[in-house]
């Protein structure tokens, strides 16, 4: 019998119920093979050393009493109830956290979306109401969004309007035309917390107006009557600033 088979045989059957011929042959091999003998002794020795090294601390007295005393039914029920409540609270927390991450957008995300929406509805596409009369647009929004849309007096040609969604909230997008370019005015009644980081800030008509450069676009931002206004177009920085300055925002 080879060393490999001997070791396998004796490793798998420490004390067989009956001595099989194979086991006997393995035992005879070990007697004549110092390597196999050393191998098997080493295995036993390791186990013994391990057992010795693991200092078994006895079970503390209090714990011993607790372990040996079976818990009363109401204690088990109470413990399980606490566990269930803990699991429930954790699950709820995870749901809230997931909801926050899925639905919460920072103000910088909103501005990126404004640029994206402006590009998506370029060429006055997706227009839902076509009119150059501010009153028509305001009246149309009354049935569409849940806030009163206040249109600023822009010195650009009003072309129409549509609705768009930000953070799953319906907001307003008003189309204008100025010097042959589309000007999109986004009017939001909700904005995530956090400052809008501006490249430049101006005072126009007593209002603080911020200018942002986003993805190659100039975005003008201001607040009025609790609403948030974002003006964007392909106009140059100076042109859009001129439009803002000459308008009654």
């Amino acid at each position, binding site marked *: 019998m080879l060393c490999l088979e001997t070791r396998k045989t004796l490793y*798998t059957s420490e004390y067989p119920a009956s001595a099989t011929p194979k086991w006997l042959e393995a035992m005879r091999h070990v007697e004549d093979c110092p390597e196999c003998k050393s*191998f098997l002794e080493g295995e036993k020795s390791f186990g013994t050393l391990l057992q010795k090294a*693991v200092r*078994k601390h006895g079970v503390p007295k209090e714990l011993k009493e607790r372990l040996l005393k079976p818990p009363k039914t109401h204690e088990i029920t109470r413990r399980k109830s606490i566990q269930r409540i803990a699991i429930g609270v954790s699950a709820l927390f995870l749901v809230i956290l997931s909801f926050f991450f899925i639905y919460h957008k920072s103000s910088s995300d909103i501005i990126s979306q404004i640029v994206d929406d402006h590009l998506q509805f370029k060429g006055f596409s997706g227009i839902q109401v076509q009119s150059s009369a501010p009153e028509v647009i305001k009246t149309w929004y009354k049935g569409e969004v849940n806030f009163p849309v206040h249109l600023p007096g822009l010195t650009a040609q009003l072309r129409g309007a549509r609705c768009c969604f930000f953070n799953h909230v319906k907001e307003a997008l008003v189309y204008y035309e100025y010097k042959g370019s589309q000007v999109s005015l986004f009017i939001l009644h909700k904005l995530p917390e956090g400052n809008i980081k501006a490249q430049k800030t101006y005072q126009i008509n007593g209002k603080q107006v911020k200018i942002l450069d986003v993805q190659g676009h100039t975005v003008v931002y201001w607040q009025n009557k609790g609403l948030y206004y974002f003006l964007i177009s392909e106009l140059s920085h100076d042109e859009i600033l001129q439009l803002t300055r000459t308008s009654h925002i």
Partner: protein
Amino acid sequence: MNMETLIEDHLDSLWYTALRLTRHKEEAEDLVQDTCMKALIHRDSLQSRSKVKAWLLKILMNTFLNHQRKDKKLIQQDIDEDFLEPIFYKNGHYFDMEEEIFSKVLDDEVQKAIDQLSVDFKAVILLVDIEGLAYREVEDILEISSGTLASRLYRARRLLRTSLYDYAQAHGFGGGEENVVS
């Protein structure tokens, strides 16, 4: 001798095994308490009082493994071992394990090394080496073949040896040429 006394006689073994399996005192306490309750309820299934330790450890192990299976934490790691590498041989040298490692590492490090093993390996080390159960008893407890037990025991011992050897070396004990018995 009543069942409560029989359990008390082996409570240290149950506690230590539960502690190593769960690695948390509270979970270990729950596990031992469940085991004690089951043992009291199923006392009639104990065939021989001489086998009470293996019987209690089987209840404990089954309770733990059933919970593990529910949590899908159990990993099967059976490898066909070659049974050629002597246990006191590493990195091309024979060494005196007791002198070089076991006498130098702290008990806590041995516990940690055991804790780091996967459940399959940990179970065989705890039952065979620590609790000193016979192979046949362990095969019955874990419901595995003799070949599987041998494979897991061989591999688990070497994983433990490596952890302890690495620890001893990291702390400047053994492993050096001058300490090696070649």
